[in-house]
């Protein structure tokens, strides 16, 4: 745990440094000199809050009498890579839909870029879960990416040099040039994810939401998508909020974690959140967090952790 935790914390700090203004950075560095290690994280968090892109404040959602989200609060800073982690049915998709303004919360507020989240928020890019691209659809990769620029506008698309260049640049950024003229429906899962990411990014959003982008991808494609997203978050200065039921593939790029279980959330750095006492509180029963070769394993157990029989309990999150 310590290695991964340290790496993640370093990256979080680096990201915060990158984005901060020079004057603020000096202050942060001064703070680092003066204060103890624990205080550094507080300072980093304060800096992140200064360039806050997303604020989720006490959001609750109940659908037909069932509580899906229960008082969920967290923030995402500019350019941060945040993992929205939790088991199936924890409310990840609902939370993303609330942020997009597609689902009205029963309580709480959302602010994107300092403004209250509304449905027509062009500062959010979105890659939904399970987009089924029909192989019979006559649409090339570059056409779908171009729809990201002006797909919400009325009328027919007009060709322009500017539009073509923007599409070309975005295809290059996600490494989709080699299949730019192929039908999107004929692409592999990993290639389709790249196209959808390009579609979501081309309007230059401040925040990119991805709902389970790694589901149905083989390990290698998944890792390629993760490193692509990590690069994009840095280069394009986009905050990434990515939902997944599995945290381990994301550990190298994550700045922060929002862990969702039973509708409740805990947020912070990986080291702060992925701990037995934090997650046990979320789940409402005792879980253990195991650290195996730099990967984490969340395992259900009973309060008596010394009972060896419990180690074989059902894995909520396997690495």
């Amino acid at each position, binding site marked *: 745990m310590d290695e991964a935790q340290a790496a993640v914390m370093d990256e979080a700090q680096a990201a915060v440094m990158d984005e901060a203004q020079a004057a603020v950075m000096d202050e942060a560095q001064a703070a680092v000199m003066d204060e103890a290690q624990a205080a550094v994280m507080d300072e980093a968090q304060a800096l992140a809050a200064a360039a806050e892109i997303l604020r989720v404040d006490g959001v609750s959602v109940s659908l037909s009498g069932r509580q899906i989200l229960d008082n969920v609060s967290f923030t995402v800073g500019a350019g941060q890579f945040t993992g929205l982690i939790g088991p199936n049915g924890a409310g990840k998709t609902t939370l993303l839909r609330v942020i997009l303004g597609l689902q009205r919360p029963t309580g709480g507020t959302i602010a994107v870029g300092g403004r209250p989240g509304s449905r027509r928020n062009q500062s959010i890019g*979105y890659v939904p879960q399970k987009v089924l691209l029909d192989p019979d659809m*006559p649409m090339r990769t570059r056409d779908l990416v171009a729809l990201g620029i002006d*797909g*919400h*506008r*009325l009328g*027919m698309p007009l060709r322009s040099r500017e539009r073509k260049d923007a599409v070309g640049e975005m295809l290059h950024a996600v490494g989709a040039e080699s299949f730019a003229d*192929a039908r999107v429906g004929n692409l592999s899962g990993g290639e389709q994810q790249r196209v959808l990411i390009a579609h979501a990014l081309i309007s230059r959003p401040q925040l990119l939401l991805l709902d389970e982008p790694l589901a149905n991808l083989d390990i290698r494609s998944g890792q390629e998508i993760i490193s692509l997203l990590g690069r994009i978050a840095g280069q394009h200065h986009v905050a990434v909020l990515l939902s997944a039921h599995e945290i381990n593939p994301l550990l190298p790029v994550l700045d922060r974690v929002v862990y969702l279980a039973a509708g409740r959330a805990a947020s912070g750095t990986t080291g702060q959140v992925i701990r037995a006492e934090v997650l046990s509180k979320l789940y409402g029963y005792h879980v253990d967090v195991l650290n195996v070769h730099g990967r984490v394993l969340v395992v259900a157990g009973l309060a008596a952790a010394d009972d060896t029989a419990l180690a074989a309990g059902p894995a909520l999150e396997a690495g």
Partner: protein
Amino acid sequence: MPQLYTWVFEPGFFTSAQVQVAATIGGVVAVVSAVVGVFTVMRGQSFAGHALGDVSTAGGSGALLIGLSPLAGFVGLGVIGAGVMDMIGVRRLRGRDLATGIVLGAAIGLSALFLYLDTTAGATTGATQQILFGSIFTIASGTIPIVVILSLVPLASIAVIYRPLLLATVSTDMAAARGIPVRVVGLLYMLALAVSVGLSSLAIGAILSTALLIGPAAAALRLTRRVGRAVAVACVIGVGATWLGVLLAYDSYYWGRGHQGLPVSFFIVAVVFVTYLLSGLPAARTGARHRRAATHMAPSPTEDKIAA
């Protein structure tokens, strides 16, 4: 050569007023069907298109019964039917099929009643044939302006909602996240579809309207990789099939000794069907070539050449 010419175009083809009206109305209707049809096929709503044909049947036969023009019934009831299907169907994901099926069943029931009354009580003995299978040669030339104006409605609707409709067709989630009112766009498209089906009911019959809606569009989707081109190709196929059908029907009068002309709708649908079968050939050929030359992501240049 003159012999071949008169063999292809039997005497009087170009001077016949009936042929001119048929070619004009058929051409306009084919364009509307092709434009709307490309979206129908992409959205997987062929079944809805067919159901609206059945609704048109009820509308047309009902209109005849009360002394209105069938076109008014085709379009009028079609638009109402589209609205009802949208209302029932939007709440659930699988509701769309269900709504379509329910409306379709009710429409066929009404058609059975209206057509029975048309042919027994009314003086319109040819009603069944006219409503179900069309009679493009008997349309009065005064109908042309009405058809042209009516066809502008779906064409303009599709042109206006083109991009949002396309994005909603790719993914309703992606469209909704961009602030597109997906429901409104879907309803506008359904209304365009209803008018389009009503128009093609007039040309080739309510039951056969699906063929002109789906066939050219489905063939075009196989031949090109771009939506704009698919629309253009579908128009060419639709208009070509309609005109060829009109010609063959006209000529068929001279084929047998009995001088019995065969129905236009049969020929139009036959040409559409054959075109659809032929449209699979280039894809099958490039598919085979791709399999031979190891799978590779490069797009095949032949696809778009055919479309251009």
